[in-house]
């Protein structure tokens, strides 16, 4: 008799869907959920909409006026974008300690908006690749 075994593909998509739900709604009692709720509270209305729809949000550098995109993630998740929205330079910087991703993203947002030069001073830069297309963590 044949046993029903869910396909790997199905398992993967279920796991992704659960992760997506988790991130969208934020499990309030978990560190990740709390941090994402705090992040949403600190986003501007436009950034909140963008984050909900695109799973990233953009900020304007406080010193240079350059545009940056912050993706859901805790490392190599920030890039500078050109006028056409194309990533031109990846930036990797994060707060010390083992913080949940919402906290990391909020720190990156505040740093770029309020002390861009300082943030860029500590950031490691890298060439952005395909990983910056689409929703890296959520799809």
């Amino acid at each position, binding site marked *: 008799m044949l046993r029903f075994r869910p396909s790997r593909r199905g398992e993967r998509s279920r796991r992704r869907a659960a992760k997506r739900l988790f991130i969208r709604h934020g499990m309030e009692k978990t560190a990740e959920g709390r*941090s994402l709720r705090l992040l949403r*509270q600190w986003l501007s209305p436009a950034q909140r909409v963008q984050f909900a729809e695109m799973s990233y949000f953009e900020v304007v550098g406080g010193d240079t006026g350059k545009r940056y995109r912050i993706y859901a993630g805790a490392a190599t998740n920030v890039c500078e974008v050109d006028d056409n929205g194309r990533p031109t330079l990846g930036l990797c910087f994060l707060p*010390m*300690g083992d913080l949940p991703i919402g906290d990391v993203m909020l720190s990156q947002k505040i740093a770029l908006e309020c002390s861009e030069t300082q943030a860029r001073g500590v*950031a490691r830069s890298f060439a952005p690749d395909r990983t910056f297309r689409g929703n890296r963590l959520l799809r």
Partner: protein
Amino acid sequence: MQIVMDPTGDSRHHFNPHDAQEVAKAERRFYELTHVGFTAAARTGPGQVSRSFDPSTEETVFFPRLVGG
């Protein structure tokens, strides 16, 4: 309210801006954290980094020193 990021998400410290003792405690916390490298930011429009303690700020978030990844 002071919100300090940590591995649990954050720790929240409420204080009454009209209570001198609570304000003093909040002020102490502000300088202790910023002294060890935390950045304090007030939620005003796009956010504003605070270099000095202001008890009238409704919400201040503290995050640890930034490092390159």
